[in-house]
Every structure is written in C-alpha cells, then in structure tokens.
C-alpha cells in the first residue's frame, strides 16, 4: 500500500482540479481518489476520508454528465431535462459508452464501484432502463467488499447516489439493507478483530464509526416507507445478535412516532445488549431523542421513564451520564409532574457534584434548565420543585450563571401575565435578579446592561401586593438597595413608587386620611432621595418634575416645592451637549422641551406663604438668565416668550386648569392688585430682555433672525396681551414694522396674520383690533 501513503502525503491528489482535465485525466484522477477508499490503515479517519473523497467523486460525476449533456446540444436544439435516450446523438452516446467500457476495465473492485456509481446518472443517455438495471448490479457488487466498514460506506454512497438519481427505485435500497444484515456477523468476526487489535482500537470506539453510514442507509429506506416495511426491518434486526449498532441506527433513522410507540420493546432490547460492544448510553440517548419528538402511548409513559432512568442512573462516566440525562429531561418535563422532574434533577445533582463534574458540562446543564422552564410556565410550581434551586447552584462559573438567570427571567416575563405576590417566586426571582445585577462591573457592555436592566424592570413591574401598599413600598425599598447599579431599574422603581402614590390617591378618592397622607409622603420621600443617585441629567430633571406633580396631586405642597427647587437648581448643570445613542448632540432642544413642561406645571403651583410672590418663577428666571446659551441661537428669547405666556395665564381671574384639592394662586390672591402689579413688573422685565435681544440682532447677518423673532413676539402679544393698552399697542405696531423692515418677512404669512387680525376685530369687544389692523401696513416688495 505504499502508493496510497504517497497519495495521502500529497494533498494535490485529494483536491479536485477540474481545469483542463482530459477524459483520460479525469479517469485517472478519480481512479486514484477512489483507490484511497479501500485503504483502512487508520480506521478512525475513514468516515472523514469518505466524505472528502465522495465529494470529489460527486463533482466528477457531475462534470462527466454535464460534458456528455453538452455534446447532445445541437446547433439549434437544446435537450430537455427529461430527455429520452432516443434524443441523444451518436457522438454523445459513443462517448458515454466509452466511459462505461473504460470503467468496466478498472482492475480493482472498490475504485471500479465508486467511479461507476458516481456516473450512474449517465445511464440516462444510453437507455431508459439503464439505472434500474445498474443499481441492483452495483448493490450485488458490494458483496465482494470484504471489510465491513468499507462495504457499509460503499452502500451508503450507493443509496445516496440512488436517491439522488432515481428516488423511486426503492428495491435496491432494501436489498442493500438486507445484504448488510447478512454481512453483519462479519463485524464480530476474526478478521475484523485482528485488524482492530493491530491498530489498538477498542470495539466501543470502532462500532460508532458505522453509525453515520448506517443512519444514512436506514434513513433512505424509512423515508415515506410503509409501516409494515419498518416492522419487518425491525424484526430482522432483532433476530441478529449483538445488534446494538443496528438498534441505534434504527432509532436515529426511523420515524420518531414509530419508535415512540414501541419504546418499551426498545428498552428491553437495549438492556439485552452486551456491555462490551456499542456504548449503551448512546442507545439511550437515541431513544430519548425520539421520545422528545413523539409521544409514546399514555399507559407506558411512566414505565418507560422508570426503566430508562434505572439504566441511566447507573452510568459511571459523568460525561456519558449527562449526555443521556439532557435528552431524557425533555421527556420527563413534557409528560410528568414536578415530582418526577424533581427526582430527575436530584439524580443529576447527585451525579454531577462529585469532583465538580458539572464544570465540564455547563452546556448540557444549561439545556436541561431551558427544557424545564420551557415546560413549567407557572413559576410557583417551578420554584416548588425542591431541587430546582440547588440545581441552579451548580452553575458556578459566573458567565454561565448569568446566562441561565437571563433565560429564567426571559421565560418569566414572557409567560407571567398576572402580577404576583407569591413569596416563593419573589424570593427566588429576587435572588436570580440579584445574581444578574451583581455581574455588572466596569467592563460590562452597555448592551448587556440594557438587557439585564430590561429583565429586572420587567420583574419589578410584575410584583404587586394588591391593596397592601405598604408592603409594596417596602418591596421597592428592598429592590432599590439590591439593584442600585442599574440606572434604568432605579428609574423604573421611581415610576412604580409614583404610581403607587397615585393609586393611593385614587383609592382614597383624593381625601387622604392621616395614615395615607403619611404613606404618600413616604412615597414622595422615596423619590426624592432616589433621584439624586441617577446620572442622566434629563432623567433627573424629568423625574423631579414628575415627582413634584405627584406630590402636588397628593397635597404635599412643601415636598412639591422641594422637587421644583431641586429641578431649578439642577438646570445650571445641564451640559452643552449630551450623549444620545453614542452620539453627541446639543442639549438645548431637550432643555427647551423640559422648561415648557415645567412652566405649565408652575401655573398651578401655589406660592409659599413665607416666600415672595411667584418665587419659583423668579428663581427659574434667574437661572435662565445666568445659563450660558449658545450665541447663535434664540432659545433664551423663545423661553422668555413662553414665560410671558405663563405670566399672562397667571394674571387671569381663574386659571385654565387646577389640581383637585389644591388652591392655586388665583384663589390664593383672588385677583389682588398687588399680585397683578408684581406680575406686570415681571412681564416688563422679561419684555425688556426680549427687546434688548432684538436690538442686538440688528446686524447684517442676523437680520433674518430679527425679523422672525419680531414676528413671533408680535404674535405672542396678539394672542396673550391686552392690546387696549396703548403702550402694548404701540409696541406691537413697532414689531410689525421691525419684522418687515429689511424685507425678510414672508409676505404670505404677513397677509394671513393681517387677515386674522381683521377677522378677530369683527367680534364684539374686539373693535380695537380693527383699529390696530389699520395701523399695520403691508410692505410691497419693489
């Protein structure tokens, strides 16, 4: 066999190079390749070698077919795919025949077989019956191959080619199977045993080498095969001694339903197999895989589990054991109650704990957990499985542990629809969540943090103690201390507590008793001390506002003041740019949005008796004044305009909206003239600021901005101001002119504005608007 050794050494011979291969070249090449398949000098490599070489042979077969096919294509006509041999021209037929003659003269049996099988399809060029005559002949030819391993792979190849070329020809598949059974005894014969002894290969590692080829043959046969054929095949397998190998292939190839209904028979047969041959744990694994796919008869189920587990539990090697247990866990979870699952889990723990065997089997253990939680959606049942938590304790490597926790939480969030207060669930899941939370460190990726936070928040949302609000609050307090490193969870907690306060208000229908008032204040206090621990500045601002509103709604006025003050004092810290989804963006639009929101809340906040009139508004204005705004933007002026709107609303006799049971400034002051004067003074200050800014814009590059701002200020005055006031009236006329002065005004907007004013003037009490309209000329562009 020295030539094959040379071939193996030279990779050129095992790779296929289709470029410029003449017919003879192809032939020669393949001859060499297929010759390799008769060499079993290193048995363990045979299956891989088979794959490698049959791949080359397939390419070869296709190339020959294509080439002959292309010969049939005349100048005009193209051969249809389902051509008949009569349409094939002489040259093509002659070439095809030449191939077959050439192959028939190959001396060695195995190369001759493989090359002929690889071009089986070419028989279509010669005659209609070609393939159906050829297949049985090739099947018989395999009988000449002495080595059982080589012969079973040859059969697998023939079945594969046969299924590809003529899937309707089932007989030769069956013949292959029965021939194989006839030669089965050879595996245990002297020749093979000597061969194994020479190579130093154990029988238990030799037999599994057969499985891929046998599985393939069995699968080909059982594909859409009638029930009685399968039964017959099984009966014949039963009759042979040492049939573990056969059983395994039957189980992996036949329909799962077929196997499942005969599970007890199979278990019986597996038990009878000798210890020395095919590894038993592989057999039980195969059976378990079938049972995971199809259900055995109702009555047999428990017996099957008992019988199977009796054997599995005796497996010594933890790796073998867990491979089986993993598969059988599915069956157990699917058909049995928590009691059986508990037993199984306990058994697994018992097997995997000694010598820390679990460390090598995390994937299998993880898959078992997944199967268990996939079948036990009810977490109260799941956690009442005593061994579930001890099972979780086997995941001692942190990354795996967190993965498992994530799985559990995902299933919980997916399947838990009702809020729960079950102490068992809460306890266990808090533990799980804590594990996830504690895995977060400086190196954790943002994405991972987001996932974890999302899962924990989902859990927090699912916890409800019903009317026991105090218990609920104490849960939130506990949760805060547990999950302090994940900001989104804290945010969720603040929202949940706010919601709790509002729920209380709803229950009390707005009239808090002493007790509930204290409770609500506790909620508010919770928010107040939690918010500063957050990092995101706008998160904090918005939460202050939200919590302030909640406090206000619950008549906690001083607490509300505290929130608003905190918000105001936080504004100077807002940076110029903030990071949103990894990109730096200017923060002003967000600030503007927040302030608008804030103003509308400030309208209803009553003044503190000890502070001056409108002290919150004043403080806010001071902060806005001191804040460093972008030079190029007019946001500050826009905010001032909004302040004007606020002040205008505040000077009304009754405000647009109120909070139930809270007296706003309108009822506090009752339209007191002193209050109004203060209000007016503030207005004037703000307007002075705006006008100053407008003046500063009187530069060439800013004229357009000046015009726009002027117009918007005009509109604000129109909407909120009392134009019967002469000074205001004059100011608006001036603004109108300012807007048009440099020709930047949009004529259509101006015309529409004017039309609106005229229309408003037609209403009673609004005649001064008609007069105003007369004083507003439209500038024609020349």
């Amino acid at each position: 066999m020295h030539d094959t050794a040379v071939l193996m050494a030279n990779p050129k011979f095992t790779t296929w190079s289709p470029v410029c291969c003449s017919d003879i070249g192809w032939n020669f090449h393949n001859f060499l390749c297929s010759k390799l398949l008769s060499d079993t000098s290193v048995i363990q490599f045979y299956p891989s070698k088979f794959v490698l070489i049959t791949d080359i042979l397939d390419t070869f077969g296709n190339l020959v077919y294509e080439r002959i096919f292309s010969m049939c294509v005349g100048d005009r006509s193209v051969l249809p795919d389902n051509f008949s041999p009569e349409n094939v021209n002489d040259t093509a037929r002659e070439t095809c025949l030449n191939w077959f003659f050439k192959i028939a003269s190959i001396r060695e049996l195995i190369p001759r077989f493989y090359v002929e099988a690889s071009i089986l399809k070419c028989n279509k060029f010669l005659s209609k019956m070609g393939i159906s005559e050829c297949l049985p002949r090739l099947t018989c030819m395999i009988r000449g191959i002495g080595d059982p391993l080589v012969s079973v792979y040859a059969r697998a190849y023939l079945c594969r080619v046969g299924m590809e070329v003529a899937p309707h020809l089932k007989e030769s598949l069956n013949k292959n199977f029965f021939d194989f059974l006839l030669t089965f005894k050879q595996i245990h014969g002297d020749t093979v045993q000597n061969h194994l002894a020479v190579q130093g290969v154990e029988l238990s590692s030799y037999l599994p080498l057969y499985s891929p080829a046998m599985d393939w043959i069995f699968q080909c046969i059982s594909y859409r095969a009638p029930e009685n054929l399968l039964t017959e095949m099984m009966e014949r397998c039963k009759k042979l001694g040492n049939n573990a190998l056969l059983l395994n292939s039957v189980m992996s190839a036949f329909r799962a339903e077929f196997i499942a209904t005969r599970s007890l028979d199979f278990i019986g047969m597996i038990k009878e197999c000798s210890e020395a041959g095919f590894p038993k744990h592989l057999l039980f694994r195969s059976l378990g895989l079938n049972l995971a796919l199809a259900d055995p008869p109702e009555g047999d189920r428990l017996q099957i589990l008992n019988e199977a587990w009796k054997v599995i539990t005796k497996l010594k090697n933890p790796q073998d054991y867990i491979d089986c247990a993993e598969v059988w866990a599915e069956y157990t979870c699917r058909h049995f109650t928590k009691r059986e699952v508990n037993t199984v889990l306990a058994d697994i723990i018992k097997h995997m704990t000694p010598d820390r065997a679990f460390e090598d089997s995390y994937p299998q253990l993880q898959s078992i957990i997944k199967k268990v939680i996939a079948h036990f959606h009810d977490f109260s049942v799941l956690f009442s499985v005593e061994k579930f938590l001890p099972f979780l304790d086997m995941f001692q490597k942190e990354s795996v542990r967190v993965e498992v926790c994530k799985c559990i939480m995902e299933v919980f969030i997916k399947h838990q629809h009702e809020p729960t207060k079950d102490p068992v669930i809460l306890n266990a899941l808090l533990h799980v969540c804590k594990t996830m939370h504690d895995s977060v460190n400086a190196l954790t990726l943002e994405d991972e943090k987001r996932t974890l936070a999302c899962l924990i928040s989902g859990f927090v949302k699912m916890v409800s103690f019903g009317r026991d609000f105090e218990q609920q609050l104490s849960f939130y307090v506990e949760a805060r201390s547990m999950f302090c490193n994940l900001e989104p969870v804290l945010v969720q907690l603040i929202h949940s507590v706010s919601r709790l306060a509002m729920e209380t208000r709803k229950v009390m229908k707005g009239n808090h008793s002493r007790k509930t008032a204290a409770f609500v204040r506790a909620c508010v206090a919770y928010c107040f001390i939690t918010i500063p621990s957050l990092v995101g500045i706008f998160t904090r601002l918005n939460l202050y506002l939200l919590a302030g509103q909640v406090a206000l709604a619950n008549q906690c006025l001083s607490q509300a003041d505290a929130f608003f003050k905190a918000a105001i004092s936080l504004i100077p810290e807002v940076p110029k740019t903030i990071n949103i989804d990894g990109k730096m963006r200017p923060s002003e639009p967000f600030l503007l949005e927040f302030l608008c929101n804030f103003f509308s809340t400030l309208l209803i906040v009553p003044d503190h008796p000890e502070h001056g009139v409108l002290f919150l508004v004043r403080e806010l204005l001071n902060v806005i004044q001191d804040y460093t705004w972008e030079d190029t933007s007019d946001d500050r002026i826009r905010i001032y305009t909004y302040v004007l709107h606020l002040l205008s609303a505040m000077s009304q006799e009754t405000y647009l909206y109120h909070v139930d049971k809270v007296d706003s400034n309108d009822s506090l002051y009752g339209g007191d003239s002193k209050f109004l004067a203060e209000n007016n003074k503030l207005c004037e200050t703000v307007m002075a600021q705006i006008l100053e800014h407008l003046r500063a814009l009187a530069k060439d590059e800013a004229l357009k901005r000046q015009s726009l701002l002027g117009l918007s200020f005009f509109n604000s005055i129109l909407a909120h101001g009392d134009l019967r006031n002469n000074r205001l009236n004059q100011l608006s006329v001036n603004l109108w002119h300012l807007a048009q002065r440099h020709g930047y005004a949009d004529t259509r907007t101006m015309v529409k504005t004017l039309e609106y004013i005229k229309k408003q003037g037609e209403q009673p009490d609004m005649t001064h608007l008609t007069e105003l309209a007369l004083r507003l000329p439209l500038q024609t562009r020349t």
Partner: protein
Amino acid sequence: MARSGCAVGTVSWPISSLSMVNTLYTAAGRPGKGVHVEMLSGVVVISGKDPVQHQGLSLTVEGTVNLQLSAKSVGVFEAFYNSVKPIQIINSTIEMVKPGKFPSGKTEIPFEFPLHVKGNKVLYETYHGVFVNIQYTLRCDMKRSLLAKDLTKTCEFIVHSAPQKGKLTPSPVDFAITPETLQNVKERALLPKFLVRGHLNSTNCVITQPLTGELVVESSEAAVRSIELQLVRVETCGCAEGYARDATEIQNIQIADGDVCRGLSVPIYMVFPRLFTCPTLETTNFKVEFEVNVVVLLQGDHLITENFPLKLCRM
C-alpha cells in the same frame, strides 16, 4: 457474411508549398452510417486557405492478418526472422476525383467503397492481439505535381461481423473448488481447507454481453485476500515447424476484495473489452480463442486458479 464498417479519426498537418507560404490542408474521413452490405461509406474533407491543384484523389482499402511467432514457442532467433508473412485479405483502390483543382475553403466528397475480398478469403473481424493482429485501414491519397509532396491520410476502420441469426444455447457451468480438486499442488497438506462454489451462467458468450455468474466462499480456513477474473486470449499460429500456441492476459477484474462474507454469493461480472476481443476464430493458419480464470488469492500467498474456456460469438 455481411459486414459494416466505419472509419474514425482526424489528423491535420502543415505543408510548406513552393511559394514558401505555410498553408494547412486536411484530409479526413468521417464515420459514415455504413448500413450497406460490405460497403464502407464516409466523406473525404479537403480544406485549405488557397485553391489546391492536384493530380487526382484516390482511396485505398487494405486489410491484413499479421502473425507473429512468440519467442517462447520458436526461440528468439526464429521469432525475429521467421515472422510469418502477413496474409492480405483485401486490397483495392478506387479513383475518386480526376486531376484538377479544389477550390479554397472546405470541400466534402462523400464516398461508398465496396469491400471485395481477394479470392476466397474471408473478411475477419478486427482484432488486436499479441501474436495475431487483424487490422483494416482506409488510405486517401492526393497526388500532386512534382514539386509538391503528395498528401496521404490513413485511418483504421473497424469490421464487425453481422450478428449471427438464431439463438445462442446457454451452456452453464457449475464449479466447486477445494484443495482436493486442485492439480499442480506440491504439498497438499500445507494447503488451508476451503470450499469455493459457484457457477458461470454460460461459457458460450455473446461478445456484447457481459460474462455473468456467481461465486460463494462457503468456507475457508485462511482469510481471502482477493478474488479475480482473468480474461485470457489463446492465440495459435500455424507455421512450418508445426504451430505455436500462446496464452496471454487481456484483463484482470477484481470481484472481491478482502475477506468476504462466508456463504454470501458474490457476483461474477465482466464486460468484454472492445478491440481486444473478437468472436472465437478458427482458420487454417491461425486461431484466436478465449478463456477465463477464476483466481482466488488466500492469506499466506496461496493462489488458486480455475480455468474455463469460453466461446465468443456475435449475436
């Protein structure tokens, strides 16, 4: 006997003409559908860039039996000198085109050539052997003026005898090989025990059909290494000193590799190779016969051979 023939092959070669311009000429025969009785048909193709002046185009058919004496039978010296004179079966010429000129481009001239044998000779089937060769050639000659070389193109054509009428009577043979049935054994006691049984479906074979049969290794003490079918030709040449008979291998086909399963029949199947086989031939001067050997190779280099003479015919 009715025969059909065909000529296959194409060869081209460059010729430098007097004008020193390299021009390419091709003369080739094309396989024709030789359905006529003893008629060879085909096409001669003349192609060239320029018009070709010529002194006539003719076709010649030649068929000979070449006999070679093997050194083993008659000795090296005689084998070298005394090779038997070739037997000419057919040799005839026809003129296709009178002297003239072929236009430039491709000219195709179809032809039909009646195969008339010399005297009472028989048109044997084409056969390529070691000591006997039966070969037929078709030659096309283009005569040209003194200054230009003549053009010649030769190709072999295959002669198959027409299928015999009637039905072949199959002659199945059963065989069983044991140490006892063997001849030519030195130490019968050293032989391992074995029993190989089998049968050939027929020793009268149609040359276009494979040789078939079955073989079973019922038992064998030693492991089987290989089982092969050896196709052998037996050529006999008559000569002055009597005759020389030589058996040589044509091909060897393995039908079993390794220690085959006991009691499981292994198919015997062999396709007869073309050219190297012909229907069994027996004439006054020479004979061509065929045999098959079933060769069983056992572990320990025991070689067991069983011989079966075959009779081939074309049906």
